[in-house]
């Protein structure tokens, strides 16, 4: 047996890193793309987007094993990692140090947002089928309240930041980018990815209000 497998420390960290992109990050991209179709109106959204997803076979299993469990592990282990942070932002005001701090703070913010977000959509839908039957109307009613719209905007931007910045540090962790030049260039690629995802997400949020 080899040391790195006997000792779970390294494996757990790499698993946390990997799950952040696959499936959690990939699901976020899919989720934003899916909801950007709110632009095409209530009928299209409820019948062609939501109903099509709800009609999928084995959906609960996929929700549990592809979304919920990886997300819970990523979040739980992320909190363990966050406990090790001693960021001195005033003393070391470098961009990467700020991003390091933001990655951990945004993680906590996303966790709080998701409790509210999943609770008022997916969980609420199990008690009250009308939530799922007219999800467009449900979202429209929620997002018409300015504070709720603000909350969703913050939750969206934190999630997109966390994914884009996570991608940049993931590339270093796995040894894809090693030179300063490669890390800087890929950092800008991640900025571009983040901006595009944020635009798609905001587009989708606004779609519920049109």
């Amino acid at each position, binding site marked *: 047996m*080899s*040391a*790195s*497998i006997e*000792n779970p*420390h*390294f*494996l757990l*960290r*790499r698993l946390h890193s990997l799950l952040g992109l696959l499936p959690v990050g990939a699901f976020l991209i899919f989720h934003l793309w899916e909801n950007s179709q709110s632009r095409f109106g209530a009928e299209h959204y409820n019948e062609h987007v939501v109903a099509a997803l709800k009609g999928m076979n084995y959906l609960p299993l996929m929700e549990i094993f592809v979304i919920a469990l990886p997300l819970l592990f990523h979040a739980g282990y992320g909190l363990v*990692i966050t406990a*090790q*942070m*001693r*960021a*001195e932002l005033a*003393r*070391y005001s*470098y961009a*990467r*140090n700020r*991003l*390091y*701090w933001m990655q951990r703070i945004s993680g906590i913010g996303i966790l709080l947002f998701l409790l509210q977000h999943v609770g008022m959509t997916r969980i609420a839908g199990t008690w009250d089928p009308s939530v799922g039957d007219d999800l467009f109307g449900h979202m429209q009613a929620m997002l018409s309240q300015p504070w709720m719209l603000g909350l969703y905007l913050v939750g969206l931007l934190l999630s997109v930041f966390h994914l884009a910045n996570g991608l940049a*540090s993931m590339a*270093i*962790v*796995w*040894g*894809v*980018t*090693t*030179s*300063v030049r*490669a*890390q800087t260039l890929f950092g800008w690629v991640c900025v571009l990815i983040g901006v595009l995802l944020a635009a798609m997400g905001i587009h989708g949020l606004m779609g519920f209000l049109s």
Partner: protein
Amino acid sequence: MTEQSIHLRIRRQDRPDSTPYWQEFVISGRADHNIVSLLMALRENPVTISGQRVDPVVWEHNCMEEVCGACAMLINGVPRPSCSALVAELDQPIRLEPLPKFPVVRDLLVDRTRIDQGLKQVKAWIKIDGVWDTHEGAPRIGPSEWAANYLYSRCMSCGCCMAACPQFGAHSAFLGPAPLAQARLMNAHPTGRYDKTERLHAIMAEGGLSDCGNAQNCVRVCPKEIPLTTAIGELGRQTTVQLLKDIFGPR
């Protein structure tokens, strides 16, 4: 050279377990002082700004040419070697504090055992006795590889990178950037590479490579401009390959 008055604020601590306190000094000195020579001048007449004669300030210094690493401390809030910190280039009052993250022994003297522990943990040495013919010289390496390796050989274990690291400290087992960079250097050595797997396994355990948070403060404060974050990226790649070998074989 004309003398000028230099204003100093020093964080002092009498014993490892006692409470630190600040003392201020104004001394008359030449403009070309560095912090080590300034502390030497202060040692001759340790009188505070209020006229009180106190114990001389304790600190470490050795080479005076930024190669030994002994004199690193926090100067105006930045971890750096004090021999290469020139008084003429510093804002006054100059604030001197012990290098953070390391236990204080007295005044500006800290216990840097953890750097040595880290170097031991990653086996940052070359075994010259072995089953192969040690009389034969090590295989030659190309100039570009030599040039890349040389950057890491400049490490003087001053601890500045570790002091600036938000993941390193009494609260965590993280080795810190300096020992990791030495693992990168030894893994590239023609003889040292025979123990590469051992070193990689050492940094794939608690306190190892994966405790790095990529805040990259280390590379900003390193007085020898060692590409620490590149070493961490390269070790990321080496451990990724090692992980695949560990899971799927062969070793």
